[in-house]
């Protein structure tokens, strides 16, 4: 069996982790506003990422013994798929790491001062809450509760869409209005705009693919494709969604919190 816990303890674990993450996010914000201590922020981000990777993305499942050694069994194939997915995420991490290197190289310890830190906190919170519901959805599915899975996924989807709109249609507009431009032939504002739009854009692209993924899985759940034993599609989209959140755990402080604001 995939899960050793019973249903209610699984759900409550999700709540506890969510509370931890929320507290850390608030703490992070407070640190940034009050002290401007970059190492501390890095520590908090790593702690958040570890929580997400372990409890929401179940990275430990990579280490799981095969219940069935037949290479054609669903459980063996699921373990194989899981390994493949994580390798893909590892590869993708290098893109984001590259963007982070670019950001540190071009902007150093300054950040775009045109951004509204409260708006940043807002979209971050939306994404975090979406991860919480995603986790609930997956747990529901692992107990065979399709209906509950669909409801939670729908909430996740709406929140994810909210994040996307918040970044691309609200934040980008406000930032542009503040004079943060990407270039487009307009007079240069330094590399700040280019870095900001590139990082948020690449992340938004991943959010978009995650949303498509969720839509597909939701639709398949509607058709009754998944069961408590066989729901690799659900697990994959869940892990991917949390990964997108995990990237934001680093991008958010990198753009909104660390260093001094420069216009």
């Amino acid at each position, binding site marked *: 069996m995939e899960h050793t816990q019973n249903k209610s303890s699984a759900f409550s674990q999700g709540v506890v982790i969510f509370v931890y993450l929320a507290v850390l996010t608030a703490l992070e914000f407070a640190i940034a506003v009050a002290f401007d201590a970059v190492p501390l922020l890095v520590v908090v981000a790593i702690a958040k990422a570890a929580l997400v990777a372990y409890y929401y993305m179940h990275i430990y499942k990579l280490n799981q013994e095969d219940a069935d050694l037949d290479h054609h069994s669903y459980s063996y194939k699921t373990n194989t798929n899981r390994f*493949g997915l994580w390798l893909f995420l590892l590869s993708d991490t290098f893109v984001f790491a590259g*963007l982070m290197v670019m950001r540190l*190289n071009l902007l150093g310890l300054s950040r775009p001062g045109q951004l509204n830190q409260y708006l940043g906190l807002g979209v971050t919170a939306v994404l975090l809450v979406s991860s919480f519901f995603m986790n609930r959805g997956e747990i529901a599915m692992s107990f065979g509760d399709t209906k509950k899975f669909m409801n939670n996924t729908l909430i996740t989807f709406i929140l994810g869409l909210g994040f996307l709109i918040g970044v691309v249609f609200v934040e980008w507009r406000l930032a542009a209005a503040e004079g943060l431009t990407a*270039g*487009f032939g*307009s007079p240069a504002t330094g*590399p700040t705009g*280019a870095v900001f739009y*590139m990082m948020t854009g690449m992340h938004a692209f991943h959010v978009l693919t995650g949303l498509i993924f969720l839509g597909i899985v939701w639709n*398949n759940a509607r058709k009754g494709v998944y069961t408590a034993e066989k729901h690799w599609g659900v697990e994959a989209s869940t892990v991917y969604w949390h990964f997108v959140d995990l990237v934001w755990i680093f991008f958010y402080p990198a753009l909104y919190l660390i260093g001094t604001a420069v216009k």
Partner: protein
Amino acid sequence: MKNIKPFWRGILFLVVFGAVGYGLGLGLDFLMVKSLRFSGPVPSVFALLFAFTAFFLGVFGFRGITRGLVWQVLGTLVGGLLVAGIRAIMGLPAFGDFFFTEPSWVFGALTGAISFLFGVGVLDDWMKWTRGIDTPDEHEEHYHGWEKYFAVSLDHKVIGVQYTVTALLLISIGGLFALIFRSELAESQLQFLTTNLNLFSQNGPQLYNSLMSLHGMIMIVSILLGTAGFINYVVPLLLGAQDMAFPRLNAFSYWVSVPAAVLLLMSLFLGGFDTGWTGYPPLSARAPVGMQMFFLGVFVAGWSSILGSLNVLVTVVRMRAKGMTAWRLPILVWAAVATGLIALTATQLIGLSFQLVMFQRLFGMGFFDPAKGGNPVLFQHLFWFYSHPAVYVFVLPGLGVISELLPVFVRKPLFGYKWIAMSSLGIALVGFVVWAHHMFTSGMNEYLRIPFMYSTLLVAIPTGVKFFSWVATMWKGKISTPTPMLFVLGGIVVFLMGGLSGPPNAIVSTDLQLHDTYFIVGHFHDTIFGGFVFPFFAAIYYWFPKATGRRMNETLGKIHFWLMTPAFFVMTFGMMYVGLLGMRRRIVDYDPALHLDATHFVVTIAAFLIALSVLIFFFNFFNSIKNGEKAEGNVWNSRSPEWQVPSPMPVHNYEKPLEVVGEPYGYGSGDDGYIKFVEPAVNAHK
């Protein structure tokens, strides 16, 4: 028409439709610029796309690859027109010098590549999955005989051959480019690539730059495909697996490389580009549209590499036969793992660096533009973070082939098996921290030079381990030298030359003199021929009977080897020699007062001899498929599992599961061999 052989029908179609495409392009271009530009980019690019597609139409009909290519052409046009329309609405010029404007070409190229994938049908199963429809695991083949190589197949052996043949095709194109610009260098002054020439909107020296740059990148892509070819074919067989872990992803990885190759070729016709394969800004930020096609082509090919290596890693971890523990893995598998780790991760960085330049050009984002506060050196860091490890992606599989074949032909165990296995991983890991040795003269922070110098010299240790092991393996062995073994031995010696010419580049004080000279060109041709080309040929000669049930002609094989090897030494030593005397790399001409003409002439002759030897190989390859001597047994008397069953390999590989019972390279030990086949248990699946 019926009884014309498919190949000649393809050629006929190529000529006819090429002419049609040329005429169409000429007409469209005329509408734009109101003059007939016979050697202009637009007719050429249309001729290329039409001719290329029509060839496959003639050979194979409207299915498989042909459908993919037609869709790519249409997708490119639709995408380009869409952007043209949007631009028209926005009040921007809708069409440009190359028919489309740059944004149109970029978007069109992207939609074209995606359309290809839909057209060829490699996404069909996944599309079904998204609708909740399951597809069977046991794939049936729709095509038989040679036809299955022209359409999507999920069989790793078919995909391996597809990769290999595509790689050979690209090698010939890249080689042809090299012969053209090498001829120009045979003598100082400009002979035929003159400033009066005007082809594809480029004059002679510009064309030189484009050909030289494309030679580099096309060869790199062909290396990636070539290594993927033998890895795909052989690794699942060595593991005793039925297929790769993800057969559909495997097919996808192969098929994305086809539109990528088309994009790379398109770049030549769309104004070309003059940066060399490295694409450094600021030059790449202002080169013609061809630059963007190049970037996109590499980007798409990069996905082939990333997903292919993901598949290999998962396959090795999850699909091994019983008893195949880490220390009993064939050494080629270890090499594939080390390669896979690099390609999986680092490739993203070349993709990102190229993508950033693309965006800089399209949107004016000033990442690498000092005028906007950007940093061109940042590009070089991102680029080399991939492109140095990439050189190990090129050579590690080949070095794996050397270690794999050597014991077979000396009838002795591989010396220091564990050390060799670990040296591949060691090279891969150290390879991640040496990239800035390409940047000693770039103006990066000076204190970085020293650590990068030492880390680079560190690579020599695991590389040396391999040499010691090879020599010790051969020591007192019963050496026989059929063609594959010749190429193995040649590879070792050539790679040694490459390795020895490395440290002078790694030591800062000497590199300041050597950087950007022809010495570097000699260095990396030695490493890449020794680490890839020779082992690649060895692998083809060696596994050819496995794939076809026939062997390649030995005499022709030996002529190939004995022509190529001396010519190759002459070529690279000549390159290093002129480099030391002050010849710069990537330049169309040199000063007669340098007195380099004679050496350059010899280098050019040597290059043509290499090309001749490869032609002989091609003849041998295609001729032996039909007429080669039959070889259905264990031709090389190997212990490896794939040779314990008859050739050609059955569709689903091994009838019975296999189990590892001995050492992989226990030649001459008198044990019971490496593997044995087990009778399947009664209640096993199927």
